């Protein structure tokens, strides 16, 4: 072996561009990459041109759970330095902004003008680029579809270093919506907004006693609500398997507000709590503590209540109140499993819920939702049917094998898992889950023959 091998490893003086460890929100499988934070479009172009043999991948706020926004040995382009709002059409309800802007910031800017983002996930701390890259969905999917349905066009920095304007209805648009950053770097986007009269939500809550009761309620009345989601307790066993609390609602109209708040109906209020400490003992989340939490939470929920006024963060983003809440899972990190199976596959859903419940996963409330019509993104996740998402500590014994089993149930039922959440899918199952995978690969091979854009996710699953 040569002398410089030893030198590389021993070098204690760190040059500015030295690789740093990067993970997703689940904090599993760290890999090292050079983090580059472009402050101008020119810097972004240069970064793409010079990203080197192991390529590059755009990254937003790192809220994807797995390895989608990491690139071992290569470059990771942190896009949050490009976060300006360029133009707002306050009459027509569109915004032109940089892709690195967060939905939180957009809400701050747009709510006072009477507009809301068309789709918001369970956290406001995602970027517009990440929202398009994963083609995210919200509680309004059954009505409004996924994020890309509301994107009129975007500017894409591609592997050759050029910037293209990409409009709806083109192959490049459909490959990029849900394309996990692998077609290029989105620099700006024009997004269609939703008009609102107030910044409050009018919320109906009800309890479901088990999974079948829950599915029946969702099927019967979901279409009455713009937003709908059910929190389900997967630690409850026996007859209570799948007991749940449904929260559904819409933006409150002005006349629903009490006189006192009507003077500033569009004020956007958020409150942050203390951050979770950086080091928490492993095993804090045991079956007992989580089970207790779920029990209390179920009992606390009203059997039925209508028209309650809630703030936007309370209704949409309860976890954003605790910054770095992902640390409660300790050093080993956690896995989020989210899948969808089509309507008519209720038996598969029941089977999967039973398996999870039998394995006694210490999972805080899982989320069940009915998806509406799909959007055209080739690797876009939502299809009409049932989607379930749950967090599980990565150290849980037997978890890998359990999830492999669930994948098979999902694939057999014609369903799929969500790439933005994935960190462990068996690659062989991908093509069955995403039938347009070949088109995606073909387009990438033409657009990016040298494979400039690559991520750990892409390597792991050979996207």
């Amino acid at each position, binding site marked *: 072996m040569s002398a410089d091998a030893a030198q590389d490893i021993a070098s204690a003086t760190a040059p500015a561009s030295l*690789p740093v460890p990067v993970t997703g929100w689940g904090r599993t499988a760290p890999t*090292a990459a050079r983090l580059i934070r472009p402050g101008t479009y020119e810097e972004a172009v240069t970064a793409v041109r010079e990203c080197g043999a192991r390529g590059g991948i755009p990254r937003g706020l790192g809220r994807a759970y797995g390895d989608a926004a990491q690139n071992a040995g290569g470059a990771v382009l942190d896009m949050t330095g490009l976060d300006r709002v360029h133009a707002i059409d306050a009459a027509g309800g569109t915004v032109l902004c940089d892709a690195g802007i967060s939905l939180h910031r957009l809400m701050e800017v747009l709510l006072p003008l009477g507009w809301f983002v068309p789709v918001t996930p369970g956290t406001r701390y995602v970027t517009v680029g990440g929202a398009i890259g994963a083609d995210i969905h919200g509680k309004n999917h059954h009505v409004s579809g996924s994020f890309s349905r509301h994107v009129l066009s975007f500017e894409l920095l591609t592997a050759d270093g050029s910037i293209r304007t990409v409009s709806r209805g083109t192959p490049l648009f459909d490959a990029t919506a849900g394309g996990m950053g692998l077609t290029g770097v989105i620099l700006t986007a024009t997004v269609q907004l939703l008009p609102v009269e107030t910044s409050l939500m009018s919320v109906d809550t009800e309890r479901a006693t088990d999974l079948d009761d829950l599915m029946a309620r969702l099927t019967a009345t979901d279409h009455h609500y713009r937003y709908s989601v059910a929190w389900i307790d997967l630690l409850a066993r026996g007859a209570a398997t799948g007991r749940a609390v449904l929260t559904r609602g819409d933006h409150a109209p002005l006349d629903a507000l009490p006189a006192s708040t009507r003077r500033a109906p569009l004020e956007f209020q958020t409150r942050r709590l203390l951050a979770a400490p950086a080091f928490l003992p492993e095993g804090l989340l045991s079956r007992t503590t989580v089970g207790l939490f779920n029990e209390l939470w179920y009992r606390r929920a009203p059997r039925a209540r209508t028209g309650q006024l809630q703030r936007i963060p309370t209704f949409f983003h309860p976890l954003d109140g605790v910054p770095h809440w992902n640390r409660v899972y300790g050093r080993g990190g956690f896995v989020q499993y989210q899948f969808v199976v089509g309507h008519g596959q209720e038996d598969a859903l029941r089977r999967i819920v039973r398996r999870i419940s039998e394995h006694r996963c210490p999972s805080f409330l899982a989320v069940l939702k009915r998806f509406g019509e799909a959007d055209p993104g080739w690797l876009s996740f939502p299809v009409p049917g049932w989607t379930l998402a749950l967090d599980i500590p990565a150290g849980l014994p037997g*978890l890998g094998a359990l999830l492999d089993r669930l994948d098979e149930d999902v694939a057999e039922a014609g369903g799929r898992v969500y790439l933005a959440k994935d960190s462990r899918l068996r690659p062989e199952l991908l093509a069955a889950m995403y039938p347009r995978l070949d088109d995606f690969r073909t387009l990438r091979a033409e657009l990016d023959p040298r494979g400039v854009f690559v991520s750990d996710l892409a390597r792991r699953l050979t996207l």
Partner: protein
Amino acid sequence: MKDAFGLPQSLLILGGTSEIALATARRLIARRTRTVWLAGRPSPALEESAEQLRGLGADVHTVAFDALDPDAHEAALGKVFAEGDVDMVLLAFGILGDQANDEREPAAAVRVAQTNYTGAVSAGLVSARALQTQGHGSLVVLSSVAGERARRANFIYGSSKAGLDAFAQGLGDALYGTGVHVMVVRPGFVRSKMTAGLPEAPLATTPEAVATAVELGLRRRSETVWVPGTLRVVMSALRHVPRGLFRRLPL
């Protein structure tokens, strides 16, 4: 790439006929591993090992590698890394030697030291650099409890493992934060061809048990793994036994 549980898709074994390494490979192939490189001294046994793993569905290649020829390590291992990312390197080669004979034949003792220590320093550094370049990967080093405290009965082997162990720990510290994970595995007495014919020590274990511990260590991103786990406690007690007493213990 490794997944959230640290399971590799590609595996390079240095010491391709090692029973412990092959048990580990079988276990990992049952989970996520698809590509395996068996590096070792060319022999029918090496090819048989490859064939056995192919039978489990893996894509297996063999590559000539001799721990005693460090000048060739860069070229031999470079070829493997040039073919694609290696998610895990398992450094498994080693020889036990014959203590009584080696005390009389210094040249034989040196071969133990050169295989277990010098060879591992070279192969370890070459692998570490390649892993660092790709920005990820685990380097799993088979050390031994014998290196924890040198014993009268096998201090030549023990001292070589002590050197290897210290080297691997230091390498792990040097690579901290580079995306590369170094894991030192310290098995006790393992029933394999290395120990065939020797009287069994207490807490004797199997290659399969070591494989299980390796899989768990990968998931936890452990830095040190003892097999069986109880050896951690036993050895921390033995470490503090006074020298005069330790000398007389029947170990």
